[in-house]
């Protein structure tokens, strides 16, 4: 982790000490949570849908951050794992007639299992080899989604029966929204717990130097496998929620653009920063919804944004938070992404 020259003197809002007490990370998180909680009550169904999508992407970005931000592994398998969660949840409901509350965890568990299976061969690979191997895995999964028509219904996909929340007296949209919000709160809290635990510190050690980590008796195999599993769990769960939100499962949802979208969230947010991943997810989903229907503009915008972030703001949003928000610490953030 790099040293942080901005921390040394008062700058920005830091010059006003009373503000530092008022604006802390906890306050901002609570304000964000409150905004999300009242959002669907205030705004129209389309904006509620967009916010729900953003919440799902928060899960995806926070999950991806475990593997690339914390553990430093260049893994491109998340699109496929999300797809596996989505297909498993969707097919159990569509063909198996399972209720959503059972199909969702089943999808998340299957994605976790597949993620762990991916880890077995992937553990032998590093850097570029790992990137190429996992890109191939994602394309292979996409091919299976398209061509295993007997199970996945091929290119056309299938339309889900609507998810019902009548048991708790909510409509489909509201029920799904608050379920997603609840899961986001639980899983983001869990991400913070993991990041502060022995496991999280081990991830960072693996990222910074595998040799040094091994010298500190950190079992690379165990901790890398855990990172793959945790990341896959988040992706699979988000995939199931994504299916329920869209009501339809089609293979093209899980193509390369999906991976680039998620990677952009983590990189623009700042590698290794949970808060950055959350803000990155909200920002990029807002941008995507603004540009809805203009595929080429989306591609140009996301490509340029990713490139410009890496070129000019390699620390991402997390670096800006550290600098401008008093009392904000990002202990796991990998500032700069540059070699010392």
């Amino acid at each position, binding site marked *: 982790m790099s040293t942080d020259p901005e921390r040394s003197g008062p700058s920005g809002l830091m010059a006003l000490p009373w503000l530092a007490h008022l604006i802390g990370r906890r306050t901002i998180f609570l304000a964000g949570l409150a905004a999300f909680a009242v959002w669907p009550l205030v705004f129209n169904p389309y904006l509620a849908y967009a916010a729900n999508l953003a919440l799902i992407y928060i899960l995806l970005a926070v999950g991806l951050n475990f593997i690339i931000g914390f553990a430093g592994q*260049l893994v491109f398998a998340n699109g496929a794992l999300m797809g596996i969660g989505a297909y498993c949840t969707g097919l159990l409901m569509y063909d198996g007639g399972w209720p959503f509350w059972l199909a969702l965890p089943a999808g998340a568990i299957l994605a976790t299992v597949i993620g762990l299976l991916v880890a077995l061969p992937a553990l032998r690979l590093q850097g570029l080899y790992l990137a190429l191997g996992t890109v*191939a895995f994602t394309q292979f999964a996409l091919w299976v989604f398209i061509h295993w028509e007997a199970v996945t219904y091929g290119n056309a996909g299938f339309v889900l029966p609507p998810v019902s929340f009548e048991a708790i007296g909510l409509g489909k949209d509201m029920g799904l929204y608050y379920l997603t919000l609840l899961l986001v709160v639980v899983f983001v809290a869990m991400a913070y717990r993991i990041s502060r635990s022995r496991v999280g510190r081990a991830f960072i050690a693996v990222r910074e130097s595998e040799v040094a980590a091994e010298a500190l008796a950190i079992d690379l195999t165990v901790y890398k496998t855990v990172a793959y599993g945790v990341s896959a769990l988040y992706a699979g769960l988000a995939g199931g929620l994504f299916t329920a939100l869209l009501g339809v499962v089609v293979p093209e949802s899980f193509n390369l*653009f999906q991976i680039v979208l998620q990677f952009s969230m983590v990189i623009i947010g700042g590698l290794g920063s949970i808060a950055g991943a959350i803000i990155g997810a909200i920002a990029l989903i807002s941008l995507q919804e603004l540009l809805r229907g203009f*595929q080429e503009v989306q591609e*140009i915008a996301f490509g*340029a944004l990713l490139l410009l972030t*890496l070129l000019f703001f390699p620390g991402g949003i997390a670096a800006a938070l550290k600098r401008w928000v008093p009392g904000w610490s990002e202990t796991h953030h990998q500032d700069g992404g540059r*070699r010392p």
Partner: protein
Amino acid sequence: MLLAYALSSGLTTGALYALVAVGLVLCYRTTGHMNFSHGELFMIGGFLAYTFHVMLGAPYIPSLLLAVLGAFVLGLITDRTVYRPLIHAQPLAMVMATVGFSFLLKGIGRHFWGGQGEVVTFPSPVSPAPVWVLGTPVFPQQLLVIAGVAVCMVLLIAFFQFTRAGKSMQATAENPHAAYLVGMRVERIYALTWGTSAALAGVAAVLMAPLTLLTPDVGFILLLKAFAATILGGLGSMGGAILGGLLLGVLEALAGTYIHSSVQEVSAFVIIMVVLVVRPSGLFGARGLRRV
């Protein structure tokens, strides 16, 4: 008959994969980074040729040269905007920067040359009627592709063997610091490498355009084939990339003919995964993996 047909079409696409893969490896050897926007350089090269040849009605050879020149310039732009600023960054930053650049190019390609799903056809400069070679029908365009790829390879070998720039490029690939110390202008060599690598993708695109359909999404598919070819041949080996490309083309054609046509698309991904797991150094491995 079926076998001969599969082999001839497999060798043709294989030759193209080899050409794209050689460009990718050229860049990888000299700069140490994989260019994830290499496929989009191919796509833009193809569309440039289409613009000059079909839309503006220029003859085939000048269109080819202009398209290759355009790809070369695009390679120089990649060097300036992506590679040079991030030269000391982590591999992750460089991979993601080239991925970002590839999406930028893809969006630009989609904006100028057709929306989603639209494809454009490119007329062949030679007769479409098949000729008979050793009792097998072969399309003249296929012969043109194989001849074109062979010419490129010979030119490339001559470039490395006989020119100062080619030798400097090899020296830089071997040890950039030493090359710098003996007075080579390493930065220029990097720029030349990116340009040459992109130009090779441009040649491949012009040769391939009449055989297939150009779409803004063709680049990523081709990039994965080139990855498969390089991994198969051993990452970092030029000869391996050529053999890997040809082998991939033939394997794909055979799988498509004898198993199922849909298997053709997936064989590249399966090859990447299997080779990386079983023998990461490839068939003609150049470098092993660093072990911790």
